[in-house]
């Protein structure tokens, strides 16, 4: 029994292993089937590779939210903020690099009649600098917001409402033309990334592969983190934060650490997403996206990273497929799915999976040992 429970505590649950295996398969298959084998029967069209890449960034975004909501009990209805921040930062890099190295004048300079880009665009032609900013800016945003909120013990629905309000504020700011982020039109017309043609076959497959790889690394890393004592503290905060404080833990710091990590992961997802769709505008900051992220996690089953990844993948794949022929029906379909899941499957799709049977068998076995 002892060795059995030890093994149980230290290995990934079945569903997580399935997710990891699928992601590893995709990390190998996408560059292979999209690249050298693209012409073969099993080949992957650039369109399909792009869809897989986009879904992987959504799954990463859902994973980021699940980290704080499913494990830490901190519901954010504003994760679009971090996603968009990552997206805007990579867009700034692509436009600035195109301008400095390729001589392509960004549209926003033409609209505004600027001869120079504003000062906050400085150094953005450098890819390493842009990468650093993609981690630092959302990380700092998350830190400031988290520090102020968690310190004054803002939590639960109040925290969620404020995250949404803050994202809305960011949207209004980005809609303005004079803030130097492209205003209403956002940023588009990207030409190259890392010296490669942005619309080229190699770039499409490369970005899709990078997205799947980022998801895989984040999944494995976060799973390990959550099984560590840090993960236990996070769950303890979710289950009873007051109890943990009265045991001598200042819960501000573990919450803040998880919150910042989540913000950075969401930003990385955004930075991978924008080059794949070729545009970013303030609509990424609208409440719809942020709420949809929470829906992915709730549908997939919060409190299990695999649930968040599967939820995001299924819902966004469904959306890609259905909006192809019934675009106006999508909000109704999503609402219906939410209703069904909330009323029939309180733990999301995790209630449906074979693990219910599997768990049943296992608890039967345990019952005999008891």
């Amino acid at each position, binding site marked *: 029994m002892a060795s059995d*429970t030890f093994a149980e505590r230290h290995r990934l649950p079945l569903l997580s292993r399935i997710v990891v295996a699928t992601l590893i398969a995709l990390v190998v298959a996408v560059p292979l089937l999209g690249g050298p084998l693209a012409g073969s029967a099993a080949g992957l069209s650039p369109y399909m590779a792009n869809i897989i890449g986009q879904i992987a960034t959504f799954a990463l975004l859902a994973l980021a939210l699940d980290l704080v909501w499913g494990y830490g009990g901190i519901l954010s209805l504003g994760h679009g903020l971090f996603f968009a921040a990552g997206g805007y930062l990579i867009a700034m890099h692509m436009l600035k690099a195109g301008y400095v190295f390729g001589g392509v004048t960004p549209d926003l300079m033409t609209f505004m009649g600027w001869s120079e880009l504003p000062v906050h665009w400085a150094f953005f032609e450098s890819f390493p600098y842009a990468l650093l900013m993609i981690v630092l800016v959302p990380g700092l945003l998350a830190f400031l917001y988290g520090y102020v909120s968690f310190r004054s013990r803002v939590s639960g629905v109040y925290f969620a409402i404020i995250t949404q309000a803050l994202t809305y504020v960011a949207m209004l700011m980005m809609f303005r033309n004079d803030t130097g982020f492209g205003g209403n039109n956002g940023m588009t017309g990207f030409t190259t990334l890392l010296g490669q043609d942005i619309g080229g076959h190699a770039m499409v497959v490369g970005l899709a592969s990078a997205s799947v790889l980022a998801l895989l690394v984040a999944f494995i890393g976060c799973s390990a983190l959550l099984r560590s004592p840090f993960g236990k503290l996070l*769950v303890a905060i979710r*289950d*009873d934060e007051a109890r943990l404080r*009265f045991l001598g833990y200042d819960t501000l710091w573990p919450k803040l650490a998880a919150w910042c990590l989540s913000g950075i992961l969401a930003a990385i997802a955004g930075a991978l997403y924008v080059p794949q769709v070729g545009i970013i505008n303030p609509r990424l900051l609208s409440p719809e996206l942020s709420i949809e992220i929470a829906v992915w996690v709730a549908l997939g089953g919060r409190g299990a990273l695999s649930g968040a990844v599967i939820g995001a993948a299924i819902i966004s794949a469904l959306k890609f497929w259905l909006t192809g022929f019934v675009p106006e029906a999508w909000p109704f379909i999503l609402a219906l799915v939410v209703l069904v899941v909330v009323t029939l499957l309180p733990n999301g799709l995790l209630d449906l999976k074979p693990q219910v049977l599997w768990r049943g068998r296992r608890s039967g076995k345990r019952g005999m040992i008891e």
Partner: protein
Amino acid sequence: MSAAEVQTASGAQAIQIDGLRVVFGDFVAIPQLSFIARYGEVHGVIGPNGAGKTTMLDVITGKTRPQGGHVRLDNRIDLIGMDEPAIALAGVGRKFQKPSVFEALSVRDNLETALRLKPRSILAEIRHWSDPRRAERVTEVMDEIGLARLADKPAGILAHGQKQWLEIGMLLMQRPKLLMLDEPVAGMTEEETRHTADLVRRLRSPDRAVLVIEHDMAFVEEIADRVTVLHEGTPIFEGRMADARHNAQVRSVYLGR
């Protein structure tokens, strides 16, 4: 009841409350309270609803800021103004009225989490999680509270009574100087109450003061060396439970006769 009378009892003072005043808006919860709990004793605090029992615990643990007065641990550390984690680390453990355990964590993980070997930093605590002293203490406490065979079960599946014992165990992990139990037997079956009484009696130790807030008078009589009766934030009796029952003032305000 003056403080001088209490001084005659044996045992050093663990917690000393002086001139405590707590006001919520227009409501005076505690007008002026002085109270002492001593090492080696189980001290019961009883009183009708609204007597200020839980408010007193809230002040000691840092949850509520009083308008005046002092709360001293070991006659030197003034707890007023310290935050909840700091007070817990100073040696004050509190069991909440409602069972408060981490339901998704196993019994073992609940107990492991409750021990702070590195009180200065959470990061250091995490790095020293597998310190053998932690596992050792978990084993001791698990035997003490009788949950060893459920070590790897999630706390959420425990029965009500077992959760209460687990929470007491979590407090014991830290070897608190002052252990405060807020209505530990509320909602318990008779058998669970008996078991809890045994546990609380075993908690009496020369290096620990135990404070029990309870409505169940029979339970208090069974476990407490000394009883304080609170009424509208003021102690109206202190002494043995058997004497409290016959005290005219206690009978009028508490027993309603």
